[in-house]
C-alpha cells in the first residue's frame, strides 16, 4: 500500500541510498509543480519526504514545503544552516565529514560508504553510534562483494556488535540499521519502492525511486496530470518476489533498483545482496542472544532462528 511520497526538489538532490547522483546541473522543481505534488500527497494521504539539494531554496519554496507535515533529507554539505538544523535525515558521503561533523547529536544519520572504506574504518563508527539517534549505513557497492569480502564483513559486524552490546548493557539504545533493525522486526521492512513509496521528480513525473529517474527519465510511472500508472505493480510487492517472500532477513534493503541492475528483475535480489543481508541477520541473532544474557530484552520478540544458509536461493528446492 502506498504510504510515502518522496519529492526530489532538484536534479542535484542528495542521494541517500545505493545509487549515485552524478548530476551537476541545477534543475529545481517548478514551484507550481511542487505545490501540485504536495496536494497530490495530501489527497492520497501520503507522508512526504523532501530530498534537498545543497544550495539554499527561496522563501516561496520553503513556504510551500512547510504547508504540509513532512521529513527533510539533506546532505551534510547542505549550505542552508536553517534546513540543516531542521533536517530529519543527514546524509554523509564521506567518513571524514561524518567523524568531524558537529550536527550529529540525536540525528538520524546516513553514511554512504564503499565496502573498502567500511572494512578499513569501521572501528571509527563506535563514537558515531554512541552519539546519533540512528545510523544507517548504505554500502554503495554491495553488488561487488566477493567471497573474501563476505568473511571480512562478518568480522566487521561482530566487532560492531560487541560495541552495541556494551551500550545496551549501559542502558543506552543505539540504532545501527545493520545490526539492531532485525532484532526489532517481525516482518519484512525493505526499500518499498514502487509499493509503499514512489518518487516525484522535478519534471512533474512519478518514478519508482530517485535512481530510476536519474538513470532513465523515460521510465516514469505516471505524472501529476494523469495520476499513477504503475505497470506490473504487483512485482514490487513481497508476495510476487519468490526469493524474498521466503526470507527472514527482515532488515534487508531489498533495493528494487539494485535488483533490476544485477538480475534484470525488480523482484529478484542478487546473490551478493542476499548473503550480505544474511550476514547481518545472523550477527543480529548473536547480538540479541548476547544482550539477553544480561537480562530481559525485547520480550515480545521471538528468537531469531539458526539457519544453515546465507542465500535463500540455495534452498529453493524446499519451497518450489
Amino acid at each position: 500500500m502506498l504510504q510515502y511520497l518522496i519529492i526530489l526538489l532538484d536534479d542535484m538532490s542528495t542521494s541517500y541510498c545505493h545509487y549515485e547522483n552524478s548530476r551537476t546541473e541545477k534543475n529545481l522543481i517548478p514551484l507550481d509543480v511542487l505545490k501540485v505534488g504536495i496536494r497530490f500527497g495530501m489527497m492520497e494521504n501520503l507522508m512526504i519526504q523532501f530530498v534537498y539539494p545543497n544550495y539554499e531554496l527561496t522563501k516561496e519554496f520553503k513556504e510551500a514545503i512547510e504547508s504540509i507535515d513532512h521529513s527533510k533529507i539533506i546532505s551534510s554539505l547542505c549550505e542552508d544552516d536553517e534546513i540543516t538544523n531542521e533536517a530529519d535525515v543527514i546524509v554523509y558521503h564521506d567518513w571524514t565529514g561524518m567523524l568531524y561533523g558537529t550536527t550529529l547529536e540525536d540525528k538520524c544519520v546516513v553514511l554512504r560508504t564503499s565496502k573498502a572504506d567500511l572494512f578499513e574504518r569501521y572501528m571509527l563508527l563506535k563514537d558515531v553510534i554512541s552519539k546519533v539517534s540512528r545510523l544507517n549505513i548504505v554500502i554503495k557497492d554491495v553488488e561487488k562483494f566477493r567471497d573474501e569480502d563476505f568473511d571480512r564483513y562478518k568480522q566487521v559486524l561482530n566487532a560492531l556488535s560487541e560495541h552495541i552490546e556494551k551500550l545496551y548493557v549501559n542502558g543506552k539504545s543505539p540504532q545501527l540499521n545493520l545490526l539492531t533493525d532485525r532484532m526489532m522486526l517481525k516482518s519484512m521492512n525493505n526499500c518499498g519502492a514502487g509499493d509503499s513509496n514512489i518518487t516525484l521528480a522535478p519534471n512533474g513525473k512519478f518514478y519508482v525511486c530517485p535512481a530510476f529517474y536519474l538513470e532513465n527519465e523515460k521510465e516514469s510511472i505516471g505524472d501529476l496530470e494523469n495520476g499513477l500508472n504503475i505497470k506490473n505493480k504487483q512485482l514490487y510487492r513481497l508476495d510476487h518476489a519468490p526469493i524474498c517472500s521466503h526470507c527472514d532477513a527482515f532488515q534487508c534493503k531489498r533495493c528494487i533498483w539494485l535488483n533490476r541492475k544485477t538480475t534484470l528483475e525488480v523482484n529478484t535480489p542478487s546473490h551478493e545482496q542476499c548473503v550480505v543481508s544474511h550476514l547481518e541477520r545472523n550477527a543480529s541473532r548473536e547480538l540479541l542472544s548476547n544482550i539477553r544474557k544480561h537480562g530481559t530484552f525485547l520480550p515480545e520478540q521471538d528468537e531469531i532462528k539458526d539457519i544453515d544458509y546465507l542465500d535463500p536461493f540455495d534452498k529453493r528446492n524446499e519451497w518450489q
Partner: protein
Amino acid sequence: MMKSIKRWQSDLAKNITFIVTKDCQLACKYCYLVGKNEKERMSWDVAKKAIDYILDHKDDMQENSVIWDFIGGEPFLEIELIDKICDYLKTEMYRRNHHWFNSYRFSFSTNGINYDSEKVQEFIKKNRDHLSIGITIDGTEVKHDLNRIYKGTGKGSYKSVVRNIPLWLEQFPYGGTKVTISSPDIPYIKESVLHLYSLGIKEVNINVVFEDVWQEGDDKLFEEQLMLLADTIIDGDYYKDYACSFFTENLGKPLDPVFENTNWCGAGRMLAVDANGIFYPCTRFAQYSLREKKAWAIGNINDGIDKNKLRPFLVLDRLSQSKQECIDCEVASGCAWCQGENYDAAETNTIYQRSTAICKMHKARVRANNYYWNKLYRKLELEGQREEYEKNKRKVKPEIC
C-alpha cells in the same frame, strides 16, 4: 491410445543450444524468429570457445545428461560446422572424463529440405546412436504451403519436404513432427493430422502459437476441428498406433496453488549461445526471436555466465507470473506458456507477466479433449477393453519446453 514417446532424458538432461545460423531457406509466416538473416553464422572459433567454457564449468551444470541442440534458421545449412562441433564435443567429453560422456544426444529440428544431402546423411551415419531429428511438416500440402513458404519466391515447400519423409522414417521410425497452428491453419487441422498419419508419422505434436494472433471465433472453429479429429481417431481406431498431442488425459484440471506451482518453461535451466558468443537462457531471448524487446543476455563466452541473471528464471513459479484469473482457472492444467513470448509481450521488461493470448484456444482444446476421453473410454468399456487399456498405458510427464 499410443502415448507420445518421452523426449530422451527430458527431465534429467541439460539442454544446450547452438544457434549456428540465423539463415533459413524458408520464410514461414508464423515463424517467431523475426530477425533472421544471412550474416550471423557461427564461426568455429566461437563454437569452440563456447564448448570449452561449458565443459570447463561442469560443477555449474550437474545434470546427468546433455542434449546438444542445433537450431537456426535451418541448422543443416551449417552441417560442416555442426560436424566439427560434434566431433570436438565427443573428443573433449572423453578427454575430460566428463560426466556427460556417453550420456549425450545431438538434437535437430529441421525443415527437412536438405535432409537427403550427402553431407547430412554422412553426419547421420556417423552419429546415429546419439541423434534425435525432427522434421517439421505441417500436414496436407495446402496446410503446409499456407505458411511454410520459400524465402523470396513465396513458393510452398511441401514437395521439397515430403520427398524426404520416407528416408527419415526409415532412419528414425519413431520420429515425431511438430505442427504449428496459427489462425489461418485452423480449418486444416483434422485433415492434416490424418495426412501425417498416412505418411507413417506416428507421433504428431501440435501447438497453437503463443503469440496474440487469434481472431474472433477462432476458438469455436478450433473446437470443431478437434471434435472432428477426435471422432475420426476413435472411430477409425487410430488411437491404437498413433499419437496426437492435442489429446492429453491430464489436461484441463484446476491446479493446486501450493503443490502445483512449478514453472512449465525450461528457460534458464537451458542454455543457448549465438554466433556472437552471447549466452541466453533460451533461444527465445536472442534478439532475432524478439519483436518488441531487447535481447536478454546472461553472459558471453569470454566473461562467462552471470549467475545473478539466471536467478529470476530459476525461482520463477506459476503463481508469481500469473494473473489471479489464471491462478483460479478451473481448467488450468496443460495451459502452456513460453517465457520468451511472455517477456516479449509484457508491458515492462520482465519475464514475470504471463501472456494470456492463448486462453480461449486452451479452453476450446480442453472441451474437445474432455469429449475425446469420454468418448474413447465409453468405447473401450463397451468393447470390454478398458481394463487392458488402463493397464498398458504409460504415464507421460508433460515435456518441459
